[in-house]
């Protein structure tokens, strides 16, 4: 803009001295232009720990937010690297959205301690725990010890593949955005309503796609697809891991194969970060199919936003069963 002003003024400048009045106008204009960004509302800096949460924040926040995501789409959310660059990202955050239920316990606390950002510390208004108010599965009914493997004491944290629970998370994010940026309430509400509608439509499509396959028996690698299976009527008969987070042992594999044959389990569902050797071996022995699922937004081209995520997952399941 200032360049254009200069070029329009050039003919005058070549002729004679610019009049004081023009100078004043020019200076005032430049000042106004320079000041403009600071007068306009600042974009809210939102950091999400995981891609699904980032996608929801982008959808609800629209152009009032700038969303950065720490975990990558095909990265195991338990084992995200606490790279120092995230300290800088978190230092500038107005809002931090975490999954909760200790999913990020291995890496997030170390980062947050180094950020010196009081806005996003536990208990501060800028911290959103996605799991708040979400009905949970696998809440341990007995005291948890590590002999059980990596059991999350608060319940199974992998709820984002259930669109109904995803809608609750979208509302949690909406509430937090309103809390830190009340002037955006109208925009956020309109965005939220549109998002909820999209999720609902997509979930309905997933329901009809899955209708012929309800009750299919499956095996999952980790207990991370429990919400998905329950929502869409798949019956989990076992996991490739003997206990959460414990690598498969030969004796467990023997039992798993026997159990799958007995139950007639048709699929082995897994996330992109697990090794393929064991599932392939088990599939070979049982005739089941191994299906790698795009479990987070961005992990496949057809899972580009949250509403399309469950369709992307369901389409891979139905394709394998067809």
């Amino acid at each position: 803009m200032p360049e254009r002003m200069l070029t329009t003024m050039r003919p005058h400048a070549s002729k004679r001295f610019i009049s004081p009045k023009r100078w004043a106008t020019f200076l005032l204009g430049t000042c106004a232009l320079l000041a403009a960004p600071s007068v306009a509302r600042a974009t809210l800096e939102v950091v999400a720990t995981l891609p699904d949460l980032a996608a929801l924040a982008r959808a609800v926040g629209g152009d009032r937010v700038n969303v950065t995501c720490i975990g990558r789409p095909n990265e195991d959310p338990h084992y995200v690297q606490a790279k120092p660059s995230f300290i800088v990202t978190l230092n500038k955050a107005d809002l931090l959205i975490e999954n909760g239920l200790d999913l990020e316990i291995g890496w997030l606390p170390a980062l947050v301690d180094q950020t010196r950002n009081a806005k996003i510390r536990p208990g501060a208004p800028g911290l959103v725990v996605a799991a708040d108010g979400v009905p949970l599965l696998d809440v341990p009914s007995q005291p948890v010890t590590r002999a059980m493997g990596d059991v999350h004491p608060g319940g199974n944290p992998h709820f984002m593949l259930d669109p109904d629970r995803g809608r609750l998370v979208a509302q949690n994010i909406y509430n937090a955005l309103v809390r830190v940026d009340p002037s955006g309430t109208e925009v956020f509400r309109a965005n939220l309503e549109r998002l909820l509608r999209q999720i609902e439509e997509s979930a309905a499509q997933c329901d009809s796609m899955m209708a012929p396959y309800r009750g299919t028996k499956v095996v999952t690698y980790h207990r991370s697809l429990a919400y998905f299976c329950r929502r869409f009527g798949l019956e989990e008969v076992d996991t490739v891991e003997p206990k959460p987070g414990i690598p498969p042992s030969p004796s467990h594999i023997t039992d798993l194969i026997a159990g799958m044959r007995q139950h007639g389990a048709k699929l082995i569902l897994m996330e992109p970060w697990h090794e393929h050797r064991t599932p392939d071996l088990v599939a070979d022995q049982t005739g089941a199919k191994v299906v790698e699922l795009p479990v987070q937004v961005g992990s496949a081209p057809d899972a580009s936003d949250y509403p399309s995520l469950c369709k992307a997952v369901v389409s891979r399941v139905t394709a394998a069963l067809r």
Partner: protein
Amino acid sequence: MRRLFCTLLCLAAATSPAVVHAESDAATLNELKREMDQLQQQMQRLQEKIEAIEQKPAVTPPQAAPAAAPVASSWSPSQPITLMSSGASYLNLSFDLITDVGTSTEKDVSKLELGDHDPDQRGFSLRNAEISLDGAVDPYFKAFANLVFKLDENNETDVELEEAYGLTTSLPWNLQVKAGQFFAEFGRHNPMHPHAWAFVDQPLVLARLLGGEGLRNVGARVSWLAPTPFYTELLLGVLNGEGETAYSFRNSDNTYGRTPVDRGVSALDDLLYVPRVTSSFDLTDTQTLVVGASGAFGANDSGSDTSTQIYGADVYWKWRPERAQRGFPFVSWQTEGMYRRYEAGADPAAGLSSENLDDGGLYSQVLWGFHLNWVAGLRGEYVTANDSAYDNLDPEERGDRTRVSPNLTWYPTEFSKLRFQYNYDHGEEFGDEHSVWLQLELLLGAHAAHKF
């Protein structure tokens, strides 16, 4: 949607009497029971749906998390006291045990292994059993304590308060202050606890320059996160710099043959200053580089106005693919170089004039997480020093040394590990030595997450 629920209730009410009237033998009753159960389940599912749908008008505040609070009232005397659970985390408590077994061609193992947590004898040794406590004090402070127990050659227990400090969390201007007893933030290896080490033993250059127990002392440290687009942190530690854990400074046990002068703190330059700058760059999505430079400047006890300067540079590079399973595979490379000038005072009684003891060295290590839970490591080290009059008293202490250590570590889980290491040692004064060590580590409890 409430209407749906009511309709269902009416339906339930209408169907059950109809069935009851039909026949009343045991079989029908059972069937009835089953049907009622089914209906009840159906109603529960509908109720869940209704609740979900009712939240659609969006503006409802988030409900209190139902599963988040395993309440204190459920405690009974037969249960262990829970200090940390997903509902309450007042204090993280962990216990870490490291024990070694192995042997060496050198009978006096402690001549080769200089670190305080290294295996110190042939056969078994237990040089690190630590209790760590950490947690948030209040909205302004975090606190951390590390109590270490070690067994010496006579199986007597040594206890030390290795670290005990507070850390601010909410200071303005990107500042953070640490105060108490802590490992000085000099380089990468010095602040690390043995359980985070990639090898059985401490690098030689750290043992020679910073001391076998590491450079740690009581003091305070302020750090500033610079407003650069990439991570840059500037730190300045001010420590008392006294005793065995300030090995090259006011340490009366290490004055290189001079009668120690107990200087105490009479001026600001009697304290120990540890500045550091560190930066990090994400080279690609899968590669990260961290570089740093550190210094340690303070008085030493070999004279009344003598001082020590230590300089260090460090680099760390790591590659890990996005689809890593539990952090594997990965490759990392870490190198640290250090140089020290120790101004030794004159002690005519010992026949020593004043001189500068210049020591330096480096280690470089590569780790390759080649398979899930398996890491292969290789470390090379070199330490050297200038010639000094002191060397006549103890030729080995500052003699040139080279060490090469391949190792292999298996992590059954993140909480346990088994490590096998071979050390080839070559010393200017002692020739070639060979050692093998097997190390077991067990970590119990809630341990604070590590920095990158």
